[in-house]
């Protein structure tokens, strides 16, 4: 039986305000670190090729596709996932509530990434126009809604409290 030499490295990331520190292989992708080490499965793996945006999280407050970031690249940084959005006791953020009010989803697979991209947008630009909303979501694919209801969900959030709380 052969043994494969595996080098690991310690990665410490503050995920939704909680420090997660694990020994992982350097090739571990951030999305897998979040799902398997931090045990937060809200962040989805979609296309796995940095196209679809289902894996979008915030790194130091900026939207990023976690399938295209190595966990070591997030070492020492702050990561926010969809579980970190809202008030922490089950209450929806205005962005989440907007998706509910305006039916911004059908199957829901893209929704965590959409919520994170919209949260980043509204944090930076609390009153985006429709063009700015569509530009901000160009890296997030939805195959159900045709985007119309998603745009309306963001507009709902913008007039009902904005980005809301996130860790």
């Amino acid at each position, binding site marked *: 039986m052969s043994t494969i030499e*595996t*080098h690991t*490295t310690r990665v410490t990331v503050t995920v939704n305000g909680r420090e997660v520190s694990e020994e992982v*292989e*350097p*090739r*571990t*992708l951030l*999305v*897998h670190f979040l799902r398997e080490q931090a045990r937060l499965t809200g962040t989805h*793996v979609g296309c*796995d*090729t*940095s*196209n679809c*945006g289902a894996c*979008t999280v915030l*790194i130091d407050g*900026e*939207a*990023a*596709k976690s*399938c*295209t*970031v*190595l966990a*070591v*690249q997030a070492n020492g940084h702050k990561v926010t996932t969809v579980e970190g959005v809202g008030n922490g006791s089950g209450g929806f953020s205005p962005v989440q509530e907007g998706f509910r009010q305006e039916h911004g989803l059908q199957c829901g697979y893209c929704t965590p990434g959409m919520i994170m*991209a919209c949260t*980043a947008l509204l944090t930076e630009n609390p009153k985006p126009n429709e063009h700015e909303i569509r*530009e*901000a979501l*160009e*890296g*997030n694919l939805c195959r159900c809604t045709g985007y119309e209801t998603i745009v309306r969900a963001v507009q709902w959030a913008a007039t009902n409290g904005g980005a809301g709380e996130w860790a």
Partner: protein
Amino acid sequence: MGMIPARFDYRQAGSVAEALQLLVSCDDAKLLAGGHSLVPLMKMRLVSPATLIDISGIAELQGVADTGSVLRVGALTRHRVVERSQVVAQHVPLLAHVAGLVGDPQVRNRGTIGGSLVHGDPAADLPSVALATGATMIVTGPAGERRITAADFFVDFLETAVGPDEILTAIEFPKRTGAGFGYEKFVRRSMDYAIVGVAVQAGEQPGIALVNMGSVPRRAEAASQALASGAAVDAVAALAADGTNPPEDLNANADYRRHLASVLTKRALLAAGYR
């Protein structure tokens, strides 16, 4: 489970000197900046370096500096920073505009200008800006610094003039304050790579460069010369695809790409203020 890269050793470099040393001492090493060209290639196992040298923390390679006649952009400057830089918008507006069209917001938050240029992808946006504006690449190696013009930088498909023991540290853009510019990118979805793209820089030394019209990013030389000698817009546009060998794929055959190059060149010229 998804796609994951092959195993590699991970090293961090805190300075250019340290990165150069690691490049020499590590076998089969690749530099990691934003990772938005390299990591996808590694996930598809198209490249499997034995060592990744993470240079993303090197402070001296970040940011935009106005040095008088040129803007010096650190290789690690992220697209988002270039896109939003007032000094870039003022002095090299074509660069600020095109930086805002790379990929999508998530990609622009992570990807770096130097990473995009050394990747040498003929379908990428930023090489055309370097070519149209006449930028100079500053490359540092064991023997010191050397300067490479954009025209000499792109060697072959995904291959640049940067040697295996060298690092692209900065890009110098000649100031184009007040000069017109145009960038036209034909895509089916907004985030896609250009099927064809055209960058036009107006002003004293005008330039036209093409995206995805061959195996390397390239200037439209005949059209650029015609523009410099005062030819009419239609005459310049007609020369756009001169000497190119466009790729054929599911999006477009070569003839269609040549047609697009002329149409987009005309649009970019008009946007740049030519009539």
